[in-house]
């Protein structure tokens, strides 16, 4: 009955785990008292978050004048951070949806945490356009509903409104996908708990029983949600890129933007997943579930998307020259050699050169190097958005309005504060939910456990399957 497994397939779960051991390993972090590292991390995150909230309140109280934007550079750190966080979110959906459609089994080790990362990153991203509106108390004006203002409707032809729909749909669908995956695992937590904890997890698990029909529908739902999320995730960053591509600003008005943004988003998202997973696996002792195999697979995605991004950068440069359009040529000359040349070279180094290290297998499997490069990539992707947004705006059509920009303490505080929000949410998630999808890992045990596949297989599972076929 069981799947025939290729003998060259490497194990995805090490340590000769039984089903019960998987439950123990993955659920117990939510049952123990928090470790010292967790408490310290949580205090730090909440402190940073508090400062971020203060800076947001300051912005709302004083007004957008507390930022260093000006008439020329009217988008800068705010939108840079928005695009950056949204991009980070994309890896979660890629792992849980696209890799599900492609039946990639290594997905099960990292999908839960990556989906959580998506949700928290989208929350951080959504903050920026909201506070950038200036009058946040009128934020509901972006929603189309029958009103007494005319009726006055939002402009459905505007990419900024498409963004509203794209991001809110993305957040909602990601939440539904993530939670539906969590329900059976919450039931596992419930069935190990007593008293109040059991009641709480009974509510969270929606009364899950594990009935065959429920599992069948659950798989059907997961598959369709994956099928829906796949074009959705591509559409989200495509629409984000439309914010720029549909404008008439040289350097923004390019048809390459949608694929370029999507590849960049997946690139930065995987880097963030790696940063998080390398820390998580160490602190929660999940080395048997998030193995070097997983890290290598993710590094391959980094290499692929990093190379796509590289091709996009070079294509942009070539087309700017080939267009013969002097404003476009100037935009790229200005990016590379203008006042913000350092951000352009930072972007080129971090995004083009650094992922190329991963052509070498032993480097792809080196955790220290991976951790270091994952941070480098995230810095690079932040630079990319800064280059596209602030550098381009700084030198527009009219030299008399040329300007420069550096962030105010409020803008820095809000950006740093989003890290507080992100890590506060992530640390709470690590405490209340299994970080690795328990049921899904169990379902791949016989195809991915090291007692069944790989060189140390003791059960001779592939042999057994082979035997059955004859």
């Amino acid at each position, binding site marked *: 009955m069981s799947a025939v497994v290729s003998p060259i397939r490497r194990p995805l779960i090490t340590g000769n785990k039984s089903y019960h051991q998987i439950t123990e390993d993955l659920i117990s972090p939510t049952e123990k008292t928090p470790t010292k590292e967790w408490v310290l991390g949580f205090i730090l995150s909440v402190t940073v978050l508090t400062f971020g909230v203060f800076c947001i309140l300051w912005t709302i109280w004083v007004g957008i004048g507390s930022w260093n934007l000006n008439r020329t550079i009217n988008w800068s750190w705010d939108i840079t951070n928005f695009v950056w966080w949204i991009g980070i979110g994309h890896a979660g959906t890629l792992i849980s949806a696209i890799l599900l459609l492609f039946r990639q089994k290594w997905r099960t080790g990292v999908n839960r945490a990556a989906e959580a990362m998506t949700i928290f990153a989208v929350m951080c991203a959504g903050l920026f356009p909201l506070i950038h509106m200036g009058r946040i108390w009128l934020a509901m004006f972006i929603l189309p509903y029958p009103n007494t203002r005319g009726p006055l409707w939002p402009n459905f032809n505007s990419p900024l409104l498409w963004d509203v729909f794209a991001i809110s749909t993305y957040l909602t669908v990601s939440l539904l996908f993530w939670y539906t995956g969590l329900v059976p695992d919450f039931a596992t937590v419930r*069935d190990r708990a007593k008293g109040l904890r059991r009641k709480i997890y009974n509510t969270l698990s929606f009364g899950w029983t594990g009935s*065959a029909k429920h599992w069948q529908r659950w798989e059907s739902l997961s598959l369709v949600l994956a099928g829906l999320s796949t074009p959705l995730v591509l559409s989200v960053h495509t629409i984000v890129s439309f914010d720029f591509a549909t404008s008439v600003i040289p350097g923004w008005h390019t048809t390459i933007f949608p694929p370029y943004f999507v590849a960049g988003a997946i690139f930065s998202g995987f880097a963030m997943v790696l940063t998080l997973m390398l820390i998580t696996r160490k602190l929660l002792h999940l080395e048997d579930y998030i193995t070097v195999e997983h890290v290598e697979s993710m590094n391959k995605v980094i290499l692929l998307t990093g190379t796509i991004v590289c091709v996009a950068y070079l294509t942009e440069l070539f087309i700017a020259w080939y267009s013969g359009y002097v404003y476009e040529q100037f935009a790229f000359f200005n990016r590379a050699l203008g006042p913000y040349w350092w951000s352009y070279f930072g972007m080129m180094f971090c995004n083009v050169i650094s992922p190329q290290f991963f052509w070498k297998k032993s480097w792809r499997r080196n955790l220290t190097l991976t951790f270091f490069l994952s941070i480098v990539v995230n810095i690079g992707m932040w630079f990319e958005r800064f280059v596209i947004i602030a550098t381009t705006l700084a030198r527009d059509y009219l030299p008399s309005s040329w300007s420069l920009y550096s962030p105010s303490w409020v803008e820095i505080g809000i950006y740093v504060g989003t890290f507080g929000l992100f890590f506060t949410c992530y640390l709470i998630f690590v405490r209340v939910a299994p970080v690795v999808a328990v049921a899904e890992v169990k379902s791949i045990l016989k195809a991915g456990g090291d007692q069944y596949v790989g060189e140390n297989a003791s059960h001779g599972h592939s042999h057994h399957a082979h035997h059955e076929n004859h």
Partner: protein
Amino acid sequence: MAQHNHTEVVYGLYNDEEDLLHAVKEAQNGHLDIYDVFTPFPVHGLDPILGLEESRLHQAGFIYGALGTMTAFLGMTWIFTKDWPNIFGGKPYWSVPAFIPITFELTVLFAAIGMTVTFYIINGLGPGVVSKHLDDRITDDKFCLAFDAAVVDKQKAESFLKSTGAAEIHSKTL
């Protein structure tokens, strides 16, 4: 496989999904009416043996999606041609290409929300539902095959479970 109130259920716990699959096959061959099967994860190959029809959830999803498509497209059409005709950037009132992104997003949104809500309703799951599960270890490492004592004779069920290698046999009133 309907779940009645106060049903006496005889169930066996198996240690491996292969044993469970074997037992389910045997039960079907012996025309024993299975009450339900509970597993810690989706066991592949179980649905056809149990005779479960393919879920129609995705068909419902298509209908929800189509509703989303129509809501978005017809809504924007009505607003921009009848309720609030406005010219943006010299484009026609009914500028179809610009409607595509929002139409797509609402299609996905309606399909996802509709399907998820339907999933929980038809399964009878939701916040506040007290789980009627038979054993705490079913969500851990036990694979459960259950018979309704009113349908299958208790002794017969127990001896069947024993003969197919159930590690434990219990009964419980749900």
